[in-house]
């Protein structure tokens, strides 16, 4: 067998969550597995990609049985039945493996189509493998060229445009109003899970000033502490409304907790500065008439879900174009690698002693 690039593993396409939990590697587990792989005869280069939606092993070998030995070593470590792994296993080689890496890096193979987090995860996996001396001329070229190709896919198509989760859609809307979140003050009304998720999404995108108010003040304090935010008595929400730019409402109140009159008063106290209500409650927390006030923007759960769905559909519509680009790029990368693959050393020349987790 001539030297070949391959990828084996399991992804969300065929492995449900319950199985992926069993296949997922801990940091220590990944380290131990890398040490095991380093001992496999015929495996010239390798890298381990371990995320919540996929466990993949990229390798270069000149021996036909190497992928099977990798699968066996992995199953042995995880205590997973090899036959079961074989059933859900992803196994590609040559240009198909290259195409897969480009697609994965560009977010085309992700559960949340077009997401960009995977790009950082693949880069991290490569960096760890490279630092440990597990990659060589083939995988170095493969990964670096694949990153360029993935960037090309993302910048020349609309695959990454528009958020696809409700919380991130809300954050994007806030950005279209305020431009930046660094000076934006956010009030979270209600201390439930959906409100917390949205608040976290705001924080992850740079929001610094977050205040939590809940009917149960101790719960507000608890959440505020967890989110590194401040707490406010729920009864002060109307009097202090003008202080905030974004109000995330997620209470279980049977009637609106923000009225038209309250909002009018608040807007008079903050002229020229918009106010953005994100109403995630059912029944709604914001009086629907509030949306009619100039410079006030109200989005409820249905609005956000609709935008997320539109974005999902728009991304899906871009897939054909993205895959065509990925195929072209993969073929070019494969041709470049094929041209030099014959002159490769048969075994890694150096294995790092101190391994870092991929």
């Amino acid at each position: 067998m001539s030297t070949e690039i391959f990828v084996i593993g399991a992804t969300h396409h065929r492995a449900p969550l319950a199985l992926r939990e069993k296949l997922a590697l801990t940091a220590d587990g990944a380290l131990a597995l890398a040490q095991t792989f380093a001992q496999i005869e015929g495996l010239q280069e390798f890298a381990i990609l371990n995320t919540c939606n996929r466990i993949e092993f990229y390798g270069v070998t000149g021996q036909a049985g190497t992928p099977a030995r990798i699968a066996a070593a992995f199953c042995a470590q995880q205590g997973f039945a090899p036959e079961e792994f074989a059933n859900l296993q992803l196994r590609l080689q040559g240009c198909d493996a290259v195409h897969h890496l480009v697609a994965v890096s560009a977010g085309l193979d992700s559960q949340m189509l077009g997401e960009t987090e995977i790009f950082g995860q693949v880069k991290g996996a490569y960096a760890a493998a490279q630092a440990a001396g597990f990659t060589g001329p083939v995988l170095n070229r493969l990964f670096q060229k694949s990153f360029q190709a993935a960037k090309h896919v993302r910048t020349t198509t609309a695959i990454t445009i528009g958020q696809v989760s409700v919380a991130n859609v809300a954050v994007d809307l806030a950005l279209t109003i305020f431009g930046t979140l660094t000076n934006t003050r956010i009030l979270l009304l209600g201390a439930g899970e959906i409100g917390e998720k949205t608040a976290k999404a705001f924080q992850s995108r740079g929001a610094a000033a977050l205040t939590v108010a809940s009917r149960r003040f101790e719960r507000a304090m608890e959440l505020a502490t967890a989110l590194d935010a401040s707490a406010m008595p729920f009864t002060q929400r109307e009097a202090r409304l003008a202080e905030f730019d974004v109000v995330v409402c997620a209470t279980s109140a049977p009637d609106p907790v923000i009225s038209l009159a309250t909002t009018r008063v608040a807007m008079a106290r903050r002229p020229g500065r918009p106010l953005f209500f994100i109403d995630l409650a059912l029944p709604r927390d914001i009086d629907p008439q509030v949306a009619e006030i100039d410079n006030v923007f109200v989005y409820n759960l249905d609005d956000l879900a609709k935008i997320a769905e539109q974005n999902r559909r728009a991304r899906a519509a871009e897939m054909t174009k993205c895959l065509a680009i990925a195929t072209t790029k993969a073929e070019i990368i494969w041709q470049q690698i094929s041209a030099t693959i014959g002159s490769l050393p048969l075994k890694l020349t150096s294995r790092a002693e101190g391994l870092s987790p991929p």
Partner: protein
Amino acid sequence: MMWPEFTDRAWLWIAASFYLAGFIQGTVSLLRHGRPPGGTTYLFIAGGYLAQLVGLSIRGRAVAGCPLGNPFEIFQFIAWSAITLYLVVGVTFRKSLFGYFTSGLAASLTLLSLAIPVWDHTQRRPIFGLNPWIELHAALAVFSYGVFGLLALTAFMFLLRNYSLKSKRQGGWFSFLPSIMELDHIGVRLLGAGSAILALSLAVGSVYWLKDISSVNVTKLVLTVVVWLIAAGAFTLRLLGILIAKRFAWVCLSLFIGALLSLAAVDQSRTGGKKTSPASRPARVVLERS
């Protein structure tokens, strides 16, 4: 510096072509890729700006003053003024639709002026008598109108962004508009700058008018003061938080349209509907090689 031997109008056609190319390229990019082209629009606008600068310089040297002697020159100067500011402000927003709309505005103003030959058939000579202060007054006034042009553009984008947020339509071209707050901030600054420049223009002009009140074109004076009053009034009301958001944007948009209409009225009152002092060959001026 060796320039190709083009006439002033040829350079201005080149400038208009650059602006139009920027607009067409933006349209193609939006239709094909669903996003504005980014930096290349800025380059097209910068290229057009340089060509326009050369064209206006040739015209200026030929008329021995700031080329503001007829509607053609005034429209060209307004477009040039707007682009001057865009080149400073637009760098920050080069990935948004700001450049696309600016190239559209500049292309419209320059092509309109080039497409109506009669606008360039008359030429007041000397344009400003022998008084450089009047020339400065006129240049500042028309420059402020260019600022109002860019202001109108930001106001238009504000209204689009506001509409997209209120109607909950976020996809497509809307996603490339700057944020509400950014557009509002730019609008306030442009209105403040335009009002200040126009105020300075009136102050400079008043020195001359006070010496010889009989020489004042009353229509022009009244209309210019009205434009300034609206601009300064809107600016004050905005700062006081009385005129905000959508209403502020509509006033800014109307201000520019009103300013352009006032120019037509001023020109009409000045010529009395007659073609006065026809220029010998105003449209064909070639810069001498040095």
